[in-house]
């Protein structure tokens, strides 16, 4: 064992942060986007379009309140329709933010430091968009608070054996924890903005939000403990949320829903679509705000690899569904699979397979993984594919169940589409506001990545 080990050839990887930065330049570069950079025409146009879509959402919701869920395409046998498809899609997108901020923190993946902040913001806005759908779908949305256990004059309590009630707890806990996790991550950066802002109004607003943070070593010590513990709590939480969402389906007896593969395959699908959304946001942001030094090729490569891996788990899920359809010997399960391939929605199933399984395989090619333009297109493809997956799960399973006398078709109406695109607008409008008024990259965590941050022994 005396002889020296031979040199191991390691491929040159792009750095997490380009060399040459100091504490000062990192701080200036990120905080100036919020504090001094003038509002660009592109931002105004982008925000304007998203805002109009948000108004369309309000219009669709207003009409829904006036007329009821009959304006949507839902009916018997397909009672869930777009509302649940979109709910699952949005919740899934949110998962990548928590994965990046919590799980990658525990795994000491320091490259996460430059994308965690806006990924967490993405989580919040996506969960907010998701939360709208089940409430609107209630039929009497003004009674949504009945889902929570509170003492009331009706002497009534929620049914805790129902996965739908579990979902209420899972999603509301997820939103709350994501919000506080995001906010305590922001506190030191809000203090930076407070001390850097020129206008009195900005100083006061950021000052109130920073709560008097002064960066004391004692505070940092407790802060880091709390942050790490929150990450440790958010990790099982995020895995549980899509598991509970999948229980909404898996606990039932509907063919195509009643399967044990659902929880892991839902979680993998959630991370799959979430990373696609992270890339779709990160690629334009780094381009328009000149942040290529902070969100480097390494981030794009790593995100693409996560998509490739989770995409394969999703593919495995589809394969197991097909296998179990055959292996169970259950007539209804067999019919379900036949119906996916040959039924009235077969084109959507094939498109789903192409979008989610076939096309993303090009991510094996390293050169394509580092092309922002190409990754943007692949991410769009994955988001469409994951939306189709939820459509197939919800609609195709419901539209032909045990009795052919109760079969039917589901057609979304214009109100379904308006509500769906409206939530995309609301999500984007919130993201536009976020990048304008809060630091979209965590400044203090970027400082820790610099070589100067290391304490040298005397």
């Amino acid at each position, binding site marked *: 064992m005396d002889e020296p080990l031979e040199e191991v050839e390691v491929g040159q990887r792009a750095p997490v942060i380009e060399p040459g930065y100091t504490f000062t330049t990192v701080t200036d570069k990120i905080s100036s986007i919020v504090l001094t950079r003038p509002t660009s025409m592109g931002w105004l146009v982008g925000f304007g379009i998203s805002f109009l879509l948000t108004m369309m959402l309000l219009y669709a919701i207003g009409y829904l309140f006036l007329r009821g869920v009959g304006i949507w395409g839902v009916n018997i046998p397909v009672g869930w329709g777009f509302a649940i498809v979109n709910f699952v899609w949005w919740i899934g997108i949110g998962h990548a933010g928590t994965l990046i901020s919590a799980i990658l923190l525990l795994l000491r993946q320091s490259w996460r430091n430059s994308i965690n902040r806006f990924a967490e913001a993405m989580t919040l806005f996506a969960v907010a968009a998701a939360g709208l759908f089940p409430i609107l779908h209630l039929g009497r949305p003004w009674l949504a608070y009945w889902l929570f256990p509170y003492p009331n004059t009706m002497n009534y309590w929620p049914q805790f054996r129902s*996965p739908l009630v579990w979902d209420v707890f899972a999603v509301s806990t997820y939103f709350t924890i994501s919000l506080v996790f995001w906010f305590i991550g922001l506190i030191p950066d809000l203090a930076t903005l407070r001390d850097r802002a020129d206008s009195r109004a900005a100083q006061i607003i950021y000052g109130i939000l920073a709560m008097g943070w002064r960066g004391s070593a004692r505070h940092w010590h407790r802060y880091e403990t709390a942050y790490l513990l929150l990450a440790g709590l958010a990790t099982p939480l995020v895995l549980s949320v899509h598991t509970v969402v999948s229980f909404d389906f898996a606990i039932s007896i509907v063919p195509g829903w009643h399967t044990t593969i659902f929880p892991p395959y839902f979680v993998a699908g959630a991370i799959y679509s979430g990373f696609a959304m992270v890339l779709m946001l990160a690629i334009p942001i780094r381009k328009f705000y000149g942040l290529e030094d902070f969100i480097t090729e390494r981030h794009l490569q790593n995100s693409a690899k996560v998509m490739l891996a989770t995409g394969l788990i999703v593919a495995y899920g589809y394969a197991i569904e097909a296998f179990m359809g055959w292996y169970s010997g259950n007539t209804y399960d067999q019919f379900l699979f036949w119906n996916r391939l040959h039924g009235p929605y077969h084109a959507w199933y094939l498109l789903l397979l192409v979008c989610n399984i076939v096309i993303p395989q090009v991510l094996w090619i390293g050169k394509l993984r580092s092309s922002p333009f190409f990754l943007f297109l692949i991410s769009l493809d994955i988001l469409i594919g994951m939306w189709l997956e939820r459509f197939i799960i919800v609609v195709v399973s419901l539209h032909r169940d045990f009795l052919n006398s109760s079969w039917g078709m589901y057609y979304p109406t214009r109100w379904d589409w308006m509500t769906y695109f409206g939530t995309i607008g609301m999500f984007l409008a919130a993201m536009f506001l976020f990048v304008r008024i809060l630091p979209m990259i965590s400044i203090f965590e970027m400082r820790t990545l610099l070589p100067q941050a290391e304490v040298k022994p005397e």
Partner: protein
Amino acid sequence: MKRVPIYGLMAEFDTPSDLVTAARRTHEEGYQKVDAYTPFPVEGLAEEIGFTKNGVPLVVLVGGILGGLSGYALQYWVSAISYPVNVGGRPYHSWPAFIVVTFEMTILFAGLAAVFGMLALNGLPMPYHPVFNVPRFAFATKDRFFLIIFSSDPKYGTESTRQFLESLGPRSISEVPS
């Protein structure tokens, strides 16, 4: 003119390494009431100024236990006592169905305990603090590293403490009016 009482003496450093060294020497010199301010968490700095007891984990543990117990107790009370629903003769105390909400409540309470516990132990929000009276302190959230010796320290002396801080080679020294 009334003389403003002095809250402490503050020294400014350029690098985290300088600050950690200075903090260690200050502690060795016998100063007890010391604090350090940095723009990002510096590993080992809290230990150098003699801060090792951190109450956050205990708060989170208590929060998590309370959340789990109250979540389970609520479901038991609702499902078995206050509002029992007979579903095909199945037991009212159907504990496997209660696991999900118990788990979520554990996470919720523990997470909120972590956030509010950390803020409370840190004494935040704090609208006023004397260190902000030093104009240079604005750099503490950007790129500079500060060490303060509080005037409440038994070893504190206006001249002796200043001389000691100067011996650490800081970039600047400021008096902090309270």
